[in-house]
């Protein structure tokens, strides 16, 4: 029992690891701050394209979404970071992570936004157009607010997935939280930093998960 506590819940090691982990958390949050807005925007554009009249536009959007939903994000990340240099394109870990997660997240956001846009009755856009709003104004003021509200739990779930996804950045040695924790583990030969990292992820995401549950109940009820 003592050995388990020593190996997994060693407060001394945790205290030592904490500054580095917090720095890693900072990087995790930075990745999120870049990837979430970009992915949401890319996803929205892909969703609009996939519901467009023009067939070529629609099909390219669907191909984009299918491809990046089917491709494992880790494969995509390693390809961009370690594969592209063979084509002469060498990216920093941060750039590789941003591009890989942007492509992956855009595809998921696209599906959510598409479902949201389709959930808004056609009469809403017709009413807006009949009062002289342009199609773009109709999208911004009438369709999107309703679409977003209808899929809010899914959007937030996707945000949670993205935060968890950032831990993959450790494989390209980007100093986010998991990378920091694993570094300390390898130096101290102790698993406590990993437990600490898990605890910090939980602290970060648990409120968000609770919030999603509340939204889901409100929409169902």
């Amino acid at each position, binding site marked *: 029992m003592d050995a388990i506590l020593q190996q997994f819940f060693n407060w001394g090691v945790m205290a030592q690891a904490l500054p580095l982990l917090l720095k890693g958390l900072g990087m995790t949050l930075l990745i999120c701050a870049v990837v979430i807005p970009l992915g949401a925007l890319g996803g929205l554009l892909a969703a609009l394209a996939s519901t467009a009249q023009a067939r070529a536009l629609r099909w390219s959007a669907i191909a984009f979404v299918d491809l990046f939903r089917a491709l494992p994000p880790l494969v995509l990340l390693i390809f961009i970071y370690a594969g592209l240099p063979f084509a002469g394109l060498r990216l920093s870990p941060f750039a590789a992570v941003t591009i890989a997660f942007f492509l992956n997240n855009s595809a998921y956001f696209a599906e959510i936004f598409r479902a949201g846009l389709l959930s808004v*009755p056609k*009469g*809403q856009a*017709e*009413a*807006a*157009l*009949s*009062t*002289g*709003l*342009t199609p773009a*104004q109709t999208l911004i*003021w*009438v369709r999107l*607010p*309703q679409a977003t*509200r209808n899929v809010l739990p899914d959007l937030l779930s996707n945000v949670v997935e993205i935060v968890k996804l950032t831990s993959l950045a450790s494989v390209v040695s980007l100093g986010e939280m998991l990378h920091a924790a694993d570094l300390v583990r390898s130096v101290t030969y102790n698993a406590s930093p990993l437990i600490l990292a898990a605890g910090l992820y939980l602290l970060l995401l648990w409120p968000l998960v609770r919030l999603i549950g509340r939204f889901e109940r409100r929409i169902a009820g």
Partner: protein
Amino acid sequence: MARSPETTPTLEVRALHKAFGSEPVLRGIDLSVARSEMVFVLGPSGSGKSTMLRCCNRLEEPTSGEIFIEGDRLTGPGVNLNAMRQRVGMVFQSFNLYPHLTAMGNVTLALRRVQKKSRAEAEAIAAEALDKVGLSDRARHHPGQLSGGQQQRVAIARALALKPTVMLFDEPTSALDPELVGDVLAVMRDVKAAGMTMLVVSHEMGFAREAADRVIFMDGGRIVEQGPPDQVLGAPTHDRTRAFLRRFHA
């Protein structure tokens, strides 16, 4: 030659055809509505009456034909459709109020975003429009907190606030519980009394008899018969009109 406003129809439809795929829905509609006239359109379902109405603000794109608002062309390329649509108010069967906005927000949206009025100015105009439909006290309510009749009156206020030249009503009372129909018809009566030009697709025969200046009967994508309400509803000359009215009264 420019025509005087007195003789230029407020709404004019010429040789309007519409097909969905290979299925013709409108087969040559000619219609002219004078200023302040209320024209009622009757017809069995599938007769094309709603499609005809929806062509009048190009929510449906006509296959061929021309439509004019006060002599200005609505159809064809190069038309500023968003500007023209503000001259054509539309009221829908299912109200189509924006559920995420209050009654006030529903009425002010186009005033602010299209007509670029300040919030204060837009709200003053909206308050006046909501007052006209008897809902001043519901301005801060969301559509979900209003009855069907109240929602439809807000929708009328939303169209009215833009000061359109003509208003189109697409079965405005068909989705309402019977006891709520009266309030909406009363508002429509007021709108007419204020001089609005109105084209109304509806099955409210009693209201047509009492308030309409002219009744049109459509069937198979054509206007079969038209005239004063007493004539079309009381003494129709066409078999198809008679058959329709018989079914309706049965």
